[in-house]
């Protein structure tokens, strides 16, 4: 079991280590971690903390992509949930209610997407585009177009506090990832999601409740987005309906595919997707630390997407197989010739 998991994660882990090495070349202090005031400090800790939103989204997005879907609305959901929480806090409803309502908002957004996809049968790309367009409008409706700020130390703790030496967001995404992996792999949920992603019709014939499963996956995505929204909002102590979570859906998709999960659905690995999120953040922070202008970031991401596309392309795969076969044939022919 264990070696299998390691083989699956090896490319991502190696990529991460190589990247860290590269950054260290330019910025020798990258790996240094010190302990002060009861917390760990260092660039790597920063990477872990700032990975939180994308890592959380990558957990949900991995599941959505495993079902051959995509969720473009997560950035908008992040904005909505952040706005809900900030509004509740600012209106004095207290933290527990604010958190609960934000999570419910995320679940509701996921339910909306899930129903459109699984029940009405709209393509995921199209279905989630609706909320992507509409979501920021809804978030602005809640914040009334302003950046809704608040001063609630307990809420801010979620975004910038420290617990047991590590920033709270790190604990949240670690916890969510561990919980998700346990839930999916200790039960049959993971296998059933994979089955639906590979062949929904056949799974339904075998009695898998594909519709409910799909809706649940989009709702899980909504929940992850809500958590990410809470962290972002708590971190800046304000809800910015326009910019909170902007383009996060793209980073989340990127993290999932860096994690070696196929965009065409099926087998998935959440751990690999989370490592993908770490890779993205290491690049972002690494570029800054290494002294390059942060404008390089987007270009590097573009190149990354291209590399992954080439790796995942079915056409390239079949051509590669063809050439390998040809090469083998030629070798064998040569051997035969030599033998004669």
């Amino acid at each position, binding site marked *: 079991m264990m070696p299998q998991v390691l083989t699956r994660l090896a490319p991502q882990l190696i990529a991460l280590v190589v990247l860290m090495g590269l950054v260290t070349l330019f910025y020798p202090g990258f790996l240094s971690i010190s302990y002060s005031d009861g917390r760990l400090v260092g660039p790597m800790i920063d990477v872990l903390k700032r990975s939180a939103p994308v890592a959380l989204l990558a957990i949900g997005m991995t599941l959505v992509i495993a079902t051959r879907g*995509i969720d473009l609305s997560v950035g908008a959901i992040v904005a909505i949930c952040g706005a809900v929480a900030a509004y509740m806090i600012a209106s004095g409803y207290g933290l527990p209610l604010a958190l609960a309502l934000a999570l419910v908002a995320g679940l509701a957004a996921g339910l909306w997407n899930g129903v459109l996809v699984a029940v*009405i*049968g*709209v*393509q995921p*790309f*199209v*279905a989630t*585009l*609706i*909320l*992507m*367009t*509409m*979501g*920021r*409008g*809804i978030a*602005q*409706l809640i914040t*009334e*177009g302003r950046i809704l700020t608040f001063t609630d130390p307990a809420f801010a703790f979620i975004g910038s506090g420290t617990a047991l030496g590590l920033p709270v967001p790190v604990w949240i995404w670690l916890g969510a990832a561990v919980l998700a992996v346990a839930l999916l792999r200790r039960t049959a949920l993971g296998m059933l999601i994979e089955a639906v992603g590979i062949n929904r019709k056949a799974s339904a014939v075998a009695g898998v409740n594909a519709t409910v499963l799909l809706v649940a996956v989009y709702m899980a995505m909504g929940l992850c987005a809500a958590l990410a929204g809470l962290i972002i909002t708590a971190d800046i102590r304000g809800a910015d*309906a326009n910019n909170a979570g*902007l383009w996060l859906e*793209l980073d989340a*998709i990127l993290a999932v*595919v860096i994690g070696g999960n196929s*965009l065409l659905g099926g087998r998935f690995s959440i751990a690999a997707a989370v490592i993908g999120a770490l890779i993205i953040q290491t690049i972002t922070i690494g570029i800054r630390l290494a002294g390059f*202008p942060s*404008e*390089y*970031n*987007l*270009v*590097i*991401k*573009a*190149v990354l*997407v*291209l590399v992954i*596309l*080439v790796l*995942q*392309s*079915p*056409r*390239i795969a079949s051509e590669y197989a063809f050439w390998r076969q040809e090469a083998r044939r030629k070798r064998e022919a040569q051997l035969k010739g030599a033998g004669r």
Partner: protein
Amino acid sequence: MNTRTLPLYVTIAIFLVGYLICWLQYPNILSTRVVGNLLTDNAYLGIVAVGMTLVILSGGIDLSVGSVIAFSGVFIAVMLRDSGLHPLLVFALLLALTTAFGAAMGWLVYWLAMPAFIVTLAGMFLARGAAYLLSVDSVPIQHDFYRMLQGAYWLMPGRGRLTLIGVLMLAVVAAGIVIAHKTRFGTSVFALGGGEATARLMGVRQGRTTVLVYAFSGLTAGLSGIVFSIYTGSGYSLGTVGTELTAIACVVIGGTLLSGGAGYMFGTLVGVLTMGLIQTYIVFDGSLSSWWTKIVIGILILAFILLQKGLVRLSQARLNAGEP
């Protein structure tokens, strides 16, 4: 009722009813001034939506156009500031660049056989990154030729201004209609959107068509970038974020099937005007906030997607019931 033309009629009906409602509340809205502004303000959007329509008809999507528009603005501004070339030459350079960029994406979509949205997502990052590399700040454009372009308009009866960029948008839409509905290339695009395997069997050159479709989208994005730079008088690498979504929304509200293979180029123009009408209404009203635009657009998209879904089910049911 032909299930193919119904969405177009619905689009036109929505626009007309919308206009009627606006007119009942604000009679001023029915003037050549407002119409002229509608065309001018949405010129860049209309142009890029024409390219997007063709891409969507072919069964693809192009997420890079917002970034390409931003890149175009920055490219023009920086070139005019630093090189001293004539704007027309800069335009030609830019259009060649964006067309080649689109063609390259089209080639990748075809060659990698991967979903278009992820390929053009890479294009989106790349174009935006390139714009950042040119300049992070907004670069003003100061050139006599530009001032001339900005000031060019025809006065319509009723003192409405039909600006050059508004006319350019209408011309691009007209060209789009001809390309999509009156050429063999256009028929190939519809064929690809209807089914790739069948289209290939019928003799569509898939690679060539795909490259051309995305090249056309790149061309319209570049053109849209020029128009936007004329409209705003500057180039800003952080501008036109999310324009691709607005363009997709216009196409869908225009009655084109988002999964490809069915739609009308003219519908996209109506979609763009509907979008502009909503914004105009909000401006006239004064008390409504801008986010209502997004919400209304979202609802319209949902309505059209459900309409198309319903039509598909209806025609299938009819066929199953054995109608000839």
